[in-house]
């Protein structure tokens, strides 16, 4: 943005992607954790640790989310720290609210950490286990959760109840409570609150209760329930991730037209969201209040004679207009008119034809893929036709080519629908979480997006390597092979930032080993040690072709810092500085040296943002 020049701005932004990737769908996300008091000490502490992880990563990744914590099946109901928050909420027996839904702050997390430190000893006495059998009413617990979510005071977009337990059956299946609990499932469905159970044991059986409860709460058929892997579920929860209910968080609904008057409804999803750093803010030094910085475009009209500003107004980024010159005449196209060009066709997807799977090149990329899943709500019967299409494409190795306009004012794109299948139940890999049954939407690059590069200048006959060379690299590959584990790959810079923030705010030490770091070449050398001598015999030493432009420093090093023209040591003498000022030679000092002069001789610490010109002016006025 630093190169922005209002005089000549030719960029026409394709803002559609920004819209599509925006996570805010008017409302906040909320997670309400419910911990079953039936968990034995060790598992209870594991559950609390999971929640701590979720709290911390939640604060770091998406600070606006609301989180809450409730204990279920307790004997006592000690009030939360913030007493008045339960004013219009009835806390049933055997439940205790620890934290109502709140945006997390430093104080809340500190309070939670304090609680955790003493939980091992005090949980049994302060909260206890419901008598006689540790079974409080499940239905009441759900009612409390619904109430907490509904009365949280914020508009919610995606609310989840996460139940950490190791009890497979909260009530005997013949009991009245069991039926009451199941009824609550349909309440959840109606209110669009998501319910997830995170088992604290690995071999958790969903059959006695949860399979039915969960499928009811999502209004899906019981035979489409896929048993999640408990361990994986816990691991991802710690990252404040959950398998998201497909109904809630799609990027959009659309109809897929298969021909005249034959349409099915579907929805699409993203596999990942934008890479987000914690929100950067400006803070007032004196009272730590948050200062928002807004960039504004201001237009001013000046009276030429008096140089007085006669009119001043602000315009939005979407303001202004585009110009085309036709001879001497200028035609204006408003942004709104251009937007209308985007809006020429209603959103939707249209089937254009099919190709064989092999027609899609191995590497073809212009924008991240999406996932498509049927939606039986808009057009009833979509799911069956979708399944038939998906199944036949899968079996016959076909892909569907479509034209897709995902939403109003977006850009129509050609897409390939590639059928994909959910992982087998025994697949415990992270990749198994990737998707379910459905179509992967591969965006096809437009002809103009593909650069035609003539590589004839690179293409020489002696480029071909010898077979020994190939063998050598095969050996290296075998030695240095790793398994791709997406969960272990994180942005190193972000991790350092997060660790520093936690250290500053919560005095939280993150171990260095826990951070992602660039790999150590020495270790790699060691593993391929025995092949390295052959490397030097097979390949000649590198002779880099002569650089055409010697003026520029080598591009590998990036641009080197400017060499100072004046020695630093001289600057400590004020006489020397005085002479510089007198001879107007301050310009030959670097900005850092000017700062040094100001600091040493005038006792002034200029602002970081001060430019060289400002610094020189400051010195000159101070010395005058």
């Amino acid at each position, binding site marked *: 943005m630093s190169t922005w020049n209002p005089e000549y701005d030719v960029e026409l932004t394709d803002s559609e992607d920004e819209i599509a990737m925006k996570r805010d769908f008017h409302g906040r996300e909320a997670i309400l954790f419910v911990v079953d008091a039936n968990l034995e000490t060790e598992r209870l502490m594991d559950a609390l640790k999971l929640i701590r992880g979720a709290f911390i990563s939640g604060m770091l990744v998406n600070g606006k989310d609301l989180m809450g914590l409730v204990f279920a099946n307790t004997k006592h109901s000690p009030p939360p720290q913030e007493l008045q928050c339960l004013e219009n909420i009835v806390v049933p027996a055997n439940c205790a609210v620890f934290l109502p839904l709140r945006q997390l702050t430093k104080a809340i997390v500190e309070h939670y950490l304090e609680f955790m430190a003493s939980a091992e000893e005090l949980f049994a006495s302060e909260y206890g286990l419901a008598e006689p059998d540790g079974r409080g009413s499940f239905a009441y617990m759900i009612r409390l959760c619904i109430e907490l979510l509904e009365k949280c005071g914020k508009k919610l977009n995606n609310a989840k109840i996460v139940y950490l337990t190791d009890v497979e059956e909260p009530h005997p299946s013949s009991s009245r409570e069991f039926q009451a609990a199941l009824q609550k499932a349909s309440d959840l469905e109606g209110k669009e609150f998501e319910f997830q159970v995170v088992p604290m044991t690995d071999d958790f059986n969903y059959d006695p209760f949860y399979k039915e409860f969960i499928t009811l709460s999502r209004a899906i058929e019981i035979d489409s329930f896929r048993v999640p892997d408990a361990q994986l579920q816990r691991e991802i929860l710690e990252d404040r991730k959950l398998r998201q209910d497909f109904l809630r968080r799609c990027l959009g609904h659309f109809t897929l037209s298969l021909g*005249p008057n034959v349409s099915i409804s579907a929805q699409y999803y993203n596999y990942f969201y934008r890479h987000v750093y914690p929100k950067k803010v400006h803070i*007032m030094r004196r009272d730590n209040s948050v200062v928002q910085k807004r960039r504004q475009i201001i237009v001013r009209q000046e009276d030429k004679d008096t140089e007085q500003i006669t009119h001043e107004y602000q315009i939005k980024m979407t303001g202004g207009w585009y110009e085309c010159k036709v001879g001497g005449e200028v035609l204006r196209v408003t942004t709104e008119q251009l937007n209308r060009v985007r809006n020429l066709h209603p959103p939707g997807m249209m089937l254009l034809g099919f190709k064989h799977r092999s027609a899609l090149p191995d590497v073809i990329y212009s924008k991240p893929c999406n996932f498509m899943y049927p939606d039986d709500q808009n057009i009833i019967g979509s799911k069956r036709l979708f399944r038939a299409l998906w199944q036949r494409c899968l079996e016959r190795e076909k892909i569907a080519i479509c034209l897709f306009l995902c939403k109003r004012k977006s850009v129509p794109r050609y897409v390939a629908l590639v059928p994909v299948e959910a992982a087998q139940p025994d697949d415990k890999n992270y990749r198994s979480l990737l998707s379910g049954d459905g179509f992967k939407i591969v965006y096809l690059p437009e002809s103009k997006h593909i650069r035609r590069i003539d590589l004839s200048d690179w293409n020489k006959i002696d480029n071909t390597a010898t077979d020994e060379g190939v063998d050598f690299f095969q050996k290296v590959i075998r030695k240095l*092979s790793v398994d791709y584990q997406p969960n272990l790959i994180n942005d190193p810079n972000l991790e350092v930032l997060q660790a520093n923030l936690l250290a500053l705010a919560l005095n939280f030490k993150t171990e260095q080993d826990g951070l992602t770091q660039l790999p150590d070449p020495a270790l790699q050398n060691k593993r391929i040690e025995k092949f390295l001598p052959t490397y030097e015999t097979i390949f000649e030493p590198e002779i880099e072709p002569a650089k055409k432009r010697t003026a520029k420093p080598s591009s590998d090093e990036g641009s080197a810092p400017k060499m100072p023209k004046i020695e630093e040591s001289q600057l400590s003498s004020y006489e020397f500085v005085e002479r510089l000022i007198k001879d107007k030679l301050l310009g030959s000092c670097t900005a850092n040296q000017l700062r040094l002069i100001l600091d040493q001789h005038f006792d002034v610490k200029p602002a970081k943002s001060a430019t060289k010109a400002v610094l020189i002016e400051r010195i000159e006025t101070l010395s005058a």
Partner: protein
Amino acid sequence: MASNKECLIIVIDVRSCASEELKLKSVKCVAEILKDKIVSDKKDYVSFVLVGCKKSKNKLNTASDNMCQNVVQFNEEPQICNWQLLLEFFKFVNEPPCDGGEWLDGLDVAVAMQRAAQALRCARQRILLLYDFNYMPQRYDDYDRISGDLLKEEIDLIVGSHNISYIDNAKSNLPQAIFQVSRKANIYEQANQKYAMQLVSNCNATLCSFKEALASVFNVSSRRPWVWNAKLNIGSVIAINLQGIIAMKNESHIKLKKVWAETEETVEREERYFIKGTEVTPLPEDLIDGYMLGGTPVPYDETLVELPPAHSPGLHFVGFVKRSSIPDAYFSGNSLYMLVHQKGNVVSAQKLDALVRALILQKCAVLCWKIFSVKFNTPRIVVLVPQESTVDRPATLYMLELSYHAQHQFWDFPALRTAKTECNADQLQAVDTLIDSMDLECTLQDTQQPRQQRQNDLLPFDGLPSIFEQNVMDVLERKVINSAKSDPQFKAMLDDKNLVDFFWRVPEPIEQKSKQAAKALKKLFPLEHSHAWLQKLKAKEEEQNAPPTVKQERRDTQTSISIDSVGLMTPAEDYKQLLQKVRSEINTTQRDVQFQSLAAQMRVVIITLLERNKLDLNQLNEVLTLYRDSCLEFNSFAEYNQFAALIKTKASERNLQEFWSSIVVEKNLGPLVLGEPTLEDELRLKAYYTKPEFGVEDQEG
């Protein structure tokens, strides 16, 4: 920076005998080329030559009168494209035509123009010839000379005509353009077509149909692309010098000049600071950078923490991974890089070739950290996918960015194969028919037949149009032609359906078949539109938008409010009910008016109750508290305080000592204070609560 400009001379057939279809298509084709160059702000030079005009006006003809007759060249020199040029071209092409005019003469003039244009130092010189090679006799004396010139001077020639189709060459299996054979063709037509075909072998010309001609014009390859120099290190010993070239990038080519204000106005971008919506003007030294950690701001700059040193630029090797283990769905970013060896570095070329071949044999890819430069220092995890060398390019690696774990979403999609979605054999058959009848790839037997499009594919992946850009260009073109300035005119232009529907249709050859298949499908799969979800959504929205308290109370109003004034029997209940009704009024002014009238009623009731002989202290307490609270709620401080004074007078007048001490004083029902009481307030309150002078007689006793 190498110049990527080109100089393009377009030779157009305007003879009266040429097919009308060809002439229309030629003009359209030229307009498309110009529009594209204008809108993407290219600095290419373009000019035109007309063949078949009544007059002769060109450089060669000026030099010698009998040379190149019936050929007219547009201006002296080629020029940069702009909208004015397009308008001039539309006029120029209407030169009075005749039957004469030879295509070789047109080419000759175009070559002469290209020679003159060499001073413009363009990277590429091209001629586009759009001609009807029909029954008119033509001279071919200069054929060898002109085709030789083209070859010698490295001028690319593209020849487009309307009756071209394609077959696959029997030997090379590559598509080849041929003229559609017509039985009526005379010997001149055959000769003309023969010579046109020979251009392909004589001077590497491209012979193509109109659609392909446009594609060929736009298909410009770059010999000197921008490169990113990087070194791939595996360990510290193995190092390969590479250059990254952008292979695909999702970007908009439309470059329009954005204007923010009238010319006499100045535009500035300013930064303003706000604290909770109030503008502040802090000094730079007052501010410190920081980050939000949940709801807590945390100061963060280099004075507080030690920032890690910058990473060195290049590709830092992580490990070899199986290609199949990298899910495409995790590819991120908006571009695809291709890595080749450093130009001229044979050793790196050999290493890269060996690495790529080994990777392919092992079905592996490379996982790396990419550090772009010292300035753009954020590491990105990338995967390098091998690509074996071909005839026209060396071994390369595709470089794709991967998303991080922290970004990943995990969805829970119910299985699709359920009893409810099970299909019978007929249904599956219908789906199969749809798939077969909409096959975009021509089957083997089709390839023997001449076809309209070059590739064996109705929608080749490398030739997909940019629909939005095309629409913008078309709209701008019309706007320029009609010089449509007003908004309604613009709207009328957009309403023209042809603009978009052109793209939103099944390719013509399979359109009919696909319609039938879809019809059959519809019969077997019942589909029914449902608006239940929409209604549910609307209901929910309404519920969320309306203030919750209002809704609740409105229900009360409807059900139980049957009174219209506060009575003496149950004043507290009445007042409560009526108050609810007042609260439910959405218009604030109305609400205040209603409250005032209700409050007046209540005051009368309270005074009446106070005047009774036997006071009901409980009731008085209740009504006074209620009234006081309601005044607090509706901000009616002055009224209450006035009333409180009245009560005190009343109490003193009627000597209501018990009422005064046990209700007013004890329950603190005195005047209302706004916010924290000041000293003055406290004095005032103290004065109020001081016992009034009661009469001697105790009436209550």
